[in-house]
């Protein structure tokens, strides 16, 4: 008796065609989203690395936070002709990110342990990574919807991939590294797909849910809530207060923080929102992480005097509320410290390999049918290995004082230029190895440049991230050396049109 479902070959071929078509069309963007996603998992670490001299604190008093907030609001008013911000936010120190910052409008400042302002927050590079992963560096609303659409396409690839490979679970550990390179590539693609399948379902599902939620809110708002799209989110995340124009002394956030500590000593406050400061409608919301929970936190609400008003319900509300609140952490891998981040990075890199090997397979199959696309093959290699090189180049640009608005053009124009120029390079192996070497060189240059510019401070985050980046550069350089050696062997082959011995260059 057959344990595995029997599916007609015709159906498999039809689905496989859909799988290949979707993968090829969306491959480059999915690869860039996957790669930037791997880096965004560490965005807090990158932010600490970028400004290693910023003050850090593992303990703080409510009075220090209150003084920091007052100083930040005063600075904001001095910049903006006495105007108060609509909301004044504060990122509170946590174990993962022990820094206190105040944010209002487009301004952000670090707060020193004594409550004084300690310089502007300027994480241009980590912001660029976030902008790329969330919005593909586009304006936010169309950008996040587009990213959501690519999430849905990635989910379509997962669905069609499993439908097109009925044997994929039976062969769950089959890994042929010898013989036909196409089979080896297919095994790499399928094995990583099988064993990472929960990750490959959850990441696009949660990503697309987050990205497409605006579109969904517009439709359900129009259809069921008299055009009010905000109602789609309010019962889940809580409603904004109604602004009053009547003035009042700016609320002190210290009583709310003290009440929070007394009521829930088990939770870790990490974000504070002073809404409508300086008006009679001002209030305080404190977002706190809960131990042993997947949700990104719970909003605890206080009035201007610091009296507890209740909580939104992400912690103990409806099932839908709790699952939606968990989707963020599941997507970004921020629920278990460094070990979970490393696991996410490994699985994210596996996802990059799946995308790369998928397009490689398509190119191999075309070549096998005498429809080789050598220019496309080289352009694909430049996307795969040019992306890390350009991401590293962007960091060098930031460290050199280039304005942050240059980063997106450097990356996207650079990638397009690289894809065009790559078509003039004859050897795929040389191109691939060259780009790996460029990536390694740019990373090393960026790390040392940054170390010199920042004075190489004695910070765990600084040295930790630098060490990881240098290890990555060493791995890339080793891969490049291996690639150059193989390209050299291939060039010594006697006959013209010698086959490339490298099964997969990208």
């Amino acid at each position: 008796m057959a344990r595995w479902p029997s599916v007609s070959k015709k159906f498999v071929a039809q689905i496989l065609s859909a799988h290949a078509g979707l993968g090829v069309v969306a491959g480059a963007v999915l690869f860039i989203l996957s790669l930037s996603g791997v880096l965004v998992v560490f965005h807090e670490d990158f932010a600490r690395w970028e400004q290693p001299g910023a003050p850090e604190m593992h303990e703080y008093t409510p009075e220090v936070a209150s003084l920091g907030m007052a100083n930040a609001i005063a600075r904001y008013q001095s910049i903006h002709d006495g105007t108060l911000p609509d909301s004044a936010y504060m990122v509170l120190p946590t174990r993962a990110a022990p820094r206190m910052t105040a944010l209002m409008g487009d301004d952000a400042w670090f707060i020193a342990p004594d409550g004084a302002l300690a310089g502007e927050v300027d994480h241009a590079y980590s912001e660029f990574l976030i902008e790329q992963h969330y919005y593909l560096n586009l304006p936010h609303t169309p950008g996040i919807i587009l990213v959501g659409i690519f999430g849905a396409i990635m989910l379509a690839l997962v669905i069609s991939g499993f439908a097109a490979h009925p044997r994929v679970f039976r062969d769950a550990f089959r890994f042929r590294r010898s013989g036909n390179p196409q089979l080896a590539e297919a095994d790499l693609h399928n094995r990583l797909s099988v064993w990472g399948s929960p990750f490959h379902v959850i990441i696009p599902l949660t990503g697309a849910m987050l990205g497409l939620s605006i579109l969904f809110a517009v439709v359900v708002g129009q259809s069921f809530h008299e055009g009010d799209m905000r109602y789609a989110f309010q019962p889940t995340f809580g409603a904004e207060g109604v602004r009053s124009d009547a003035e009042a002394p700016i609320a002190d956030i210290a009583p709310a923080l003290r009440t929070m500590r007394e009521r829930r000593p088990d939770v870790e406050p990490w974000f504070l929102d002073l809404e409508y400061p300086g008006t009679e409608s001002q209030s305080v919301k404190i977002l706190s992480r809960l131990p042993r929970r997947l949700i990104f936190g719970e909003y605890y609400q206080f009035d201007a005097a610091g009296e507890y008003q209740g909580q939104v319900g992400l912690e103990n509300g409806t099932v839908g509320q709790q699952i939606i609140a968990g989707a963020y952490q599941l997507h970004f891998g921020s629920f278990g410290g460094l070990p979970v981040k490393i696991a996410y990075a490994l699985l994210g890199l596996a996802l990059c390999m799946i995308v790369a090997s998928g397009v490689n397979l398509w190119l191999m199959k075309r070549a096998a049918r005498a429809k080789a696309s050598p220019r496309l093959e080289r352009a694909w290699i430049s996307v795969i290995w040019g992306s890390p090189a350009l991401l590293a180049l962007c960091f060098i640009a930031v460290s050199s004082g280039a304005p942050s608005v240059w980063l997106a053009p450097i990356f996207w124009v650079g990638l397009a230029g690289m894809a065009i120029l790559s078509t003039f390079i004859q050897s795929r192996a040389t191109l691939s190895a060259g780009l790996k070497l460029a990536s390694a060189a740019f990373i090393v240059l960026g790390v040392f440049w940054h170390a010199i510019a920042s004075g190489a401070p004695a910070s765990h985050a600084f040295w930790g991230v630098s060490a990881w980046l240098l290890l990555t550069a060493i791995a890339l350089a080793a891969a490049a050396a291996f690639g150059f050696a193989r390209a050299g062997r291939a060039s010594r082959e006697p006959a013209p049109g010698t086959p490339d011995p490298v099964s997969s260059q990208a």
Partner: protein
Amino acid sequence: MTILAAVLSAAGVGLLFSSWTKRAGRHDGSLWLGWGTLAISLPVWIVASGPDRGVAMAALMAMTAALVVLAVQYARPDGPVRRNASRADSTASQATLSAMKTVRTVYAGVLATVFAGVAAVALSASIYGLMLGAGAPQPDALLGGLFFFVLGWGVLAVVATIDIALRWRSIAMVTIVVLSAGLLLLTRTLT
């Protein structure tokens, strides 16, 4: 407890790998032992990390352990890779893309994005409305709607690109869009 859970996850994947590599036609008992160990690791993870976080950790640990096994396999080639003449660096036999084929590809892309998207959002908004109408809390309806929006779009994108005649795909997608929009209008009227 976390260490015990991690050990169980790793052992489960190890037993599965052992079963796969040793089998000759059929799996032996270690297949079920492997799955069983992974299943046992789930409640241990829940005790160690909490209910929702525990489930996530169990899946994550199993995937990471499998990734390690695959990495070891990948780094241990079982022979030289045969040259692939079809992927030569030569520029011979370049394919050309006809204008008609390009138009068909773009049209299929429109089916998979615009048509599939419109159908999915209409269908999922109907589900949202029906759930609200049935008395479900709004956040649950939001979750249900968003889930089916994304899943529906994914499934319909596959339908739009499956290798059957383009006219049949077009008819199918237009029909689905019309039916979904009709369902949304009906739901809106009823609720």
